[in-house]
């Protein structure tokens, strides 16, 4: 018996579809933060599992690229591993878990701790691209609000938080103003990561497959997290270090370690954690042998 | 058109276009002296009034025909005639609540002469604010507003500060024997006589060149009637004109300078044409 021999087009999607997506991406680059509609295609995974990100990646990846995929900061979740394997197979791309080696990083809910560089592309998986959605359910109206730059409504949400909790309680998918013009949902990344979008040297692409929207932050673009003069945006902060690698100033996950509910706080970015831990072990070794 | 608009003014009002008040003034601002005696604050000339009752087979009720009289400055003109002669109708036509079918109702207003029979609603409102006061038998007060503010309101509308206006209002209320404990209450809860005195205070709180008094003393005791007579004399002394309907002979005799017999202008009922 022989396995069926199927040849996929490079990047899985057909060339026409990739052109459609690339056109949307170019338009997105031209109008930073603006949601460009596109004809979202079927890909071999369920909608809501990152189909937007996968289509964007498919449209920009080639055999010379090195792909990293993270899910909430981790390289080793099922979804991240599967997407990496998928593109190795259909695009002939290499894959990596190292942020600094990747040319394309597809992400769900995090921006890596290692600073991004020029010529890197960060592809976000986006569940809900419309930042005004929960305040104004009508798509016709939210599009008009964006077009006319009427963003009073967005501040109502922040006002309500302060009135209720004494501070802006939103800690993820925190709305940003891109290039001084469009209010944009950064996908559900923690507000901890928001400052990393500002003037980033990397190209940031956002794909929402179910909602059929693509938007872009070009390199070196102003990205301002919204706030009031007297209640400015404040990213989340973690005071204690990672209990594995000892890093400070990184985003930590709470991991439950036993049945009594004891927990430890560790880096959400597994690549960063591993490399920091390895480097400190090597330092200790070097010190001993010296 | 099924609905007969019998008053030409109404049609004019309905089609008011973007004309400024200055454009309108030449129509109304006639040359003083040409059209009314220079010492008059009000000159009613040849006014007719007929009510058309559309709900009763368009029954026409002529009320007044050729009504003509003047109110000089500093004088009190009393409207005489039997009940039903049309005295209140005259008052309401001058105040603007009723339209006039023909003739002129000339009012000396802000250094011009305004024909109230043809004036724009805006001009009538302006005249009411500054020139034309009206004290009726009944207080038509807004619910919830305290008596003191009901009286002070005309002053506040003309830009007097609230405290000064209330002070002046309080003086008048005190003069008319409204106890201070009532000042903060809405007059809707007052007795008829108290309401009437609040109404009088409101009418006299600012000095208008012409004051219309429609039975202001109807249910007052002798003491308060005396106060009203004083108030009227003070206003006359300052040069205001008055047009009044009095049922009390003693008040009438105390302040009337001239009497106009409305009966002599009452339209003859035989003219009724269905």
């Amino acid at each position, binding site marked *: 018996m022989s396995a069926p021999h199927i040849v996929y087009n490079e990047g899985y999607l057909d060339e026409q579809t990739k052109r459609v997506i690339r056109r949307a991406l170019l338009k997105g680059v031209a109008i930073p933060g603006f949601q460009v509609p596109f004809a979202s295609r079927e890909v071999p995974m369920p909608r809501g599992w990152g189909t937007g990100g996968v289509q964007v990646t498919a449209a920009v990846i080639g055999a010379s690229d090195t792909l990293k995929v993270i899910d909430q900061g981790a390289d080793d979740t099922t979804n991240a591993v599967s997407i990496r394997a998928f593109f190795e197979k259909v695009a002939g791309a290499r894959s990596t878990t190292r942020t600094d080696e990747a040319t394309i990083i597809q992400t769900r809910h995090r921006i890596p701790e290692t600073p991004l560089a020029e010529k890197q592309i960060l592809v976000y998986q986006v569940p809900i691209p419309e930042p005004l959605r929960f305040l104004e359910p009508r798509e016709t109206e939210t599009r008009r609000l964006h077009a006319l730059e009427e963003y009073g409504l967005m501040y*109502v949400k922040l006002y309500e938080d302060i009135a209720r909790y004494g501070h802006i309680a939103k800690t993820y998918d925190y709305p940003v103003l891109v290039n001084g013009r469009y209010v944009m949902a950064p996908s559900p990344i923690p507000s901890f990561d928001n400052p990393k979008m500002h003037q980033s040297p990397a190209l940031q692409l956002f794909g929402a497959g179910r909602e059929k929207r693509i938007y872009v932050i070009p390199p070196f673009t102003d990205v301002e997290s919204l706030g009031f003069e007297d209640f400015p945006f404040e990213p989340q902060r973690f005071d204690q270090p990672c209990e594995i690698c000892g890093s400070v100033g990184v985003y930590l996950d709470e991991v439950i370690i036993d049945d009594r509910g004891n927990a430890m706080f560790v880096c959400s970015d597994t690549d960063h954690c591993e490399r920091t831990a390895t480097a400190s072990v090597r330092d200790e070794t070097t010190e001993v042998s010296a | 058109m099924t609905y007969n608009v*019998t008053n030409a003014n109404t049609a004019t009002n309905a089609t008011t276009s973007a004309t400024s008040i200055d454009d309108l003034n030449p129509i109304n601002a006639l040359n003083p002296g040409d059209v009314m005696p220079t010492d008059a604050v009000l000159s009613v000339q040849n006014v007719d009034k007929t009510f058309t009752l559309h709900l009763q087979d368009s029954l026409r009720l002529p009320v007044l025909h050729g009504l003509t009289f003047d109110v000089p400055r500093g004088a009190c003109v009393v409207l005489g005639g039997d009940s039903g002669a049309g005295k209140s109708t005259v008052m309401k036509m001058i105040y*603007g609540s009723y339209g006039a079918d023909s003739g002129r109702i000339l009012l000396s207003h802000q250094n011009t002469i305004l024909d109230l029979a043809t004036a724009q609603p805006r001009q009538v409102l302006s005249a009411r604010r500054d020139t034309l006061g009206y004290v009726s038998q009944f207080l038509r007060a*807004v619910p919830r507003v305290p008596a003191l503010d009901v009286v002070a309101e005309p002053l506040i509308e003309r830009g007097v500060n609230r405290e000064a206006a209330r002070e002046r209002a309080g003086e008048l209320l005190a003069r008319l024997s409204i106890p201070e404990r009532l000042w903060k209450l809405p007059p809707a809860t007052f007795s008829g006589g108290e309401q009437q005195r609040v109404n009088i205070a409101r009418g006299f709180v600012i000095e208008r060149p012409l004051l219309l008094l429609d039975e202001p003393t109807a249910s007052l005791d002798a003491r308060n009637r005396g106060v009203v007579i004083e108030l009227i004399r003070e206003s006359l002394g300052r040069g205001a004109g008055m047009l009044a309907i009095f049922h009390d002979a003693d008040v009438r005799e105390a302040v009337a300078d001239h009497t106009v017999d409305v009966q002599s202008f009452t339209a003859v009922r035989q003219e009724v044409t269905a």
Partner: protein
Amino acid sequence: MKNETPLLSVTGAGHRYGDRFGCRDVSFDLWPGEVLAVVGESGSGKSTLLGMLSQRLTLDEGTIRYRTARLSDADLGGAGEDERMAEDLLDLSTLSEREVRRLWRTDWGFVHQNAADGLRMHVSAGGNVGEPLMANGWRHYGKIRAEAEEWLRRVEIPADRIDEAPATYSGGMRQRVQIARNLVFGPRLVFMDEPTSSLDVSVQARLLDLIRSLVAELGLAVVVVTHDLAVARLISHRTLVMKDGVVIESGLTDRVLDDPQAAYTQLLVSSILQG
């Protein structure tokens, strides 16, 4: 005399539903500080007129002009003081959607019959009143909240309920929040569509009194649509009576109600329940 130009000038205005006119040939001027009541039965065209004036329905005939500084996309960033002085009657049909919406943010208010149409029912009262300020670029939470508090006080909402949503309020309170939301940004012209008719009689009187005193205090121009002649008498200076889509009588409110000329107006006036 001040205010030589009207704030709003309507000439021969009409709106068509298919081949039938919902209202037609309506002309009037409105000056600052003036309250105009539009009365008539349901189906008389009064709501169509309001829709047309407030730019929610198309103007198929005639013109509506509004006194404002000349707007253009170029000075949307902020017209200078000098430009603001140069006010002109502007034909509303020549404005872009952007310009019309700017007028809604800065110059015009609309009080709906049903508060749910004019409020975000699940946003706090403070947020509802603060939203127009935020829409006009206010970015200081403390100032926004102070202003919202002040306006809620003026419409007699207890201070300790500022953080509750209108969904938890009584009908009268909702309507008062709606009024605060429509006055907080200092409009010059406010449209009201049956503002009190969904309320109990006792609540109505209180609300009308509030509207009346705020309108006088702020010198607003108001167009209020109502089927209730008592509402017209209490708060308006002038009244238009509509029937079958046309104005059949107009003038000073007390004259229209005390000395009605048209048969229909006489019928309306004689139908008032005496109470």
